[in-house]
């Protein structure tokens, strides 16, 4: 059981690859993997932020709304170039993070309630900012972020790889990372040890929002259009699933970055397998639900053993 908790997600990935190698035509190919990686980038980036938040024993349902807001902001500033537009999009996303963090850390609202409020309000704001319009994006730099590669690695995947590395470093090697899991393990004990608990929570929610904003930028670049009404809809749920099957417990106190990547990859592979074998979308959603249940069940086993 302990073995399954730690390596289950990797075993599942290997099994799925073996299945596809045997039964799905054209699955094991460089092109297909490139496509799969590109498609999983937004979920992965949101999941990285989610892993941090869950590590503090929290949850963030506003990731999709932040993506939408970022998407809505880009057309407003893209005239100045990609960098300024991206900066503004991330800044706007961070404001939602600040709202989340302030409610949770300072007022003491439960994370699920606070971020649910921002999930609804955030998308509303995005629609207001975008004037409820879908806008196509034509700036060549941003389009190239979505479409081009460097030595065979798509830019968007490169962004994701860098962010994974940064978050892994943050979690494993920095004071902040250690403090974050300490807060998730026991908030009271962390407070009594003199940790700046409120600041840590605030920072975590801002980081999660900033990451979601980056996901929104990458997704917009790939679509070639700003679609605030639907972009990132329910992506939080996929992100949470990826985090949990990656071995980060919902009870907090632990963050598994590599596991989160594996979790996102597994979700992507399952979706691709079902699509390539012509299974209808509805079934693929049901499959996802079943996976969440299994993952959470295995995690719960871990708690019971402790």
């Amino acid at each position, binding site marked *: 059981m302990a073995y399954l908790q730690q390596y289950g997600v990797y075993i599942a990935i290997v099994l799925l690859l073996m299945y596809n190698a045997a039964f799905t035509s054209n699955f094991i190919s460089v092109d297909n993997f490139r496509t799969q990686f590109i498609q999983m980038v937004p979920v992965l980036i949101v999941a990285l932020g989610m892993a941090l938040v869950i590590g503090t024993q929290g949850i963030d349902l506003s990731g999709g709304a932040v993506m939408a807001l970022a998407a809505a902001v880009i057309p407003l500033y893209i005239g100045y170039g990609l960098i300024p537009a991206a900066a503004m999009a991330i800044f706007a996303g961070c404001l939602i993070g600040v709202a989340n963090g302030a409610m949770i850390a300072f007022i003491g609202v439960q994370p699920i309630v606070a971020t649910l409020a921002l999930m609804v309000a955030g998308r509303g704001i995005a629609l207001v900012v975008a004037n409820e319009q879908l806008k196509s994006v034509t700036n060549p730099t941003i389009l190239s972020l979505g479409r081009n590669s460097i030595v065979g690695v798509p830019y968007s995947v490169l962004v994701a790889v860098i962010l994974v590395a940064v978050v892994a470093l943050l979690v494993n090697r920095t*004071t902040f990372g*250690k403090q974050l899991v*300490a807060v998730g*393990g*026991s908030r009271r004990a962390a*407070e*009594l040890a003199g*940790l700046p608990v409120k600041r840590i929570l605030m920072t975590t929610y801002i980081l999660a929002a900033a990451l979601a904003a980056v996901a929104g930028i990458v997704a917009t670049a790939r679509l070639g259009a700003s679609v605030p009404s639907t972009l990132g809809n329910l992506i939080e749920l996929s992100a949470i699933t990826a985090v949990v099957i990656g071995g980060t417990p919902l009870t907090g*106190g632990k963050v598994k970055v590599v596991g989160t990547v594996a979790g996102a990859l597994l979700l992507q592979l399952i979706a691709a397998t079902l699509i390539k074998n012509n299974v209808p979308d509805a079934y693929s959603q049901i499959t996802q639900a079943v996976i969440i249940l299994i993952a959470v069940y295995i995690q719960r086993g871990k708690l019971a053993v402790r």
Partner: protein
Amino acid sequence: MITPTGTPRDATVLEARGVTKRFAGITALDNVDFTLHPGESLALMGENGAGKSTLIKVLTGVYQPDAGELHLGGTTTTFARPLDAQRSGISTIYQEVNLIPLLSVAQNIFLGREPRDRWGLIDFKQLNENARTLLDTYDIHVNVRRPLHRLALGMQQMVALARAVSIDARVVIMDEPTSSLEAREVETLFRVIGLLRAQGIAIVYVSHRMDEIYRVCDSVTVLRDGKSVHSGLLADLPRVELVSIMLGRSVEKTKRESLTAFGSARTSSQAPTLIATDLTRKHQISGISLEIRPGEVVGLGGLLGSGRSETLKALAGVMKVDNGHVRVGGRLVKNGSVSAAIRAGIVMLPEDRKAEGIIPNLSIRDNIVLAALPRLSVGGFTSRARQDAIVDVFMKRLRIKATSSSQLVSELSGGNQQKVMIARWLAMNPRVLLLDEPTRGIDVGAKAEVQALINELADEGLAIVMVSSEVEEVVEGSARVIVLRDGSVETELIGDEVTEHHLLSALVGEPITVTKELP
């Protein structure tokens, strides 16, 4: 041979034969035999990490043994989960209170056995009434509707006890039940134990306090490094001998290393490190002023609810005060800020290790360096080398028993967790050390070490304030005792006045005419 209650010696109520339990990298129990007779009151003794709690968890279905078997009333049995053991009449109070914090006292007592009304819903009126009747029988006074987490730790322990005895039990197991109890509550506990024994209920009692063991128990089983090394009657076993069996040292050696290690307590004439003036918080403490000098160990005496822990919390910035202030080295410390207090050099070892101290999911190393982390980091990045330099020193100095510093702190025995907490604060190089029950749950050997350490730290110039519900410890350790009652300073005992007799009479607020018999 006949047990004190007159049942034949060979009738057993609970037995373990050849029980082995391994955890990753450690054999916590190694082929342990354990026998409990009806009506027997058995002390389970051993150093921190000897395997006492693990044995209890095996006996009550929390852990499954890797080898060996259990017998209940003579027949082989297995407990797949704690509930099975409970249904078979084994009732347990675990070392760390494990009730449900948000439920009320009454709900906790009758959890899973609530009275129902005719709709099948919980009959709260009946529930509360039953709880009150039960608690009244044992003279425990508490509002049964209050959520458990609002009670002091000692009171929570009493609720756990009430729950344990309210289950029709043949065996009641108590893992360090008195470590968070007040002298008065300990008396209540002993009275309850007396009642249980009169009903022929067998008792397993774990404690590091020798006085209690000799008072409550008639036989003893000693574990050392996971093996049972001695079983027998307590009456045949002088204290030193028991300790020497526990520690695995010769009697002579044990005698030489006296059991409490506080040296001569001194006062100091230097300028005070810490000055608190008129600390007041509504309903908690009022007008508390005190001065602590470098090198001084000051005891804070008082009964439960006298404001001892609250005073420490006010000093440590954990509790905001309405009025009054704290100065360290002449500088004002910001009210109600833990981090400001820590920066000023005031650190506090909290009373409730489980809820306020350890971070269970982190390693020993991460727990020790937690507060000192910013100091041990370079530009926000952690430095393993710097951490290890500190961690290794304290693991050795405090003799923390673990497979390595990377082991999860939740896997340590209770006493070793306490040492990790002490290490966390010593790593901060504090100027003022506030200790709330510093030796709680620590075995005799380690206790002497911690007490010696407190002395050593005082010699190095620390100002130390200590709260302990063990009168003996307060008296031996402190040069000065400030006695609190109802949230304010009642009196102060200095020099010759620091005796158990004086302290006890100051605690209750009246002179004690008959000296208590203390073994």
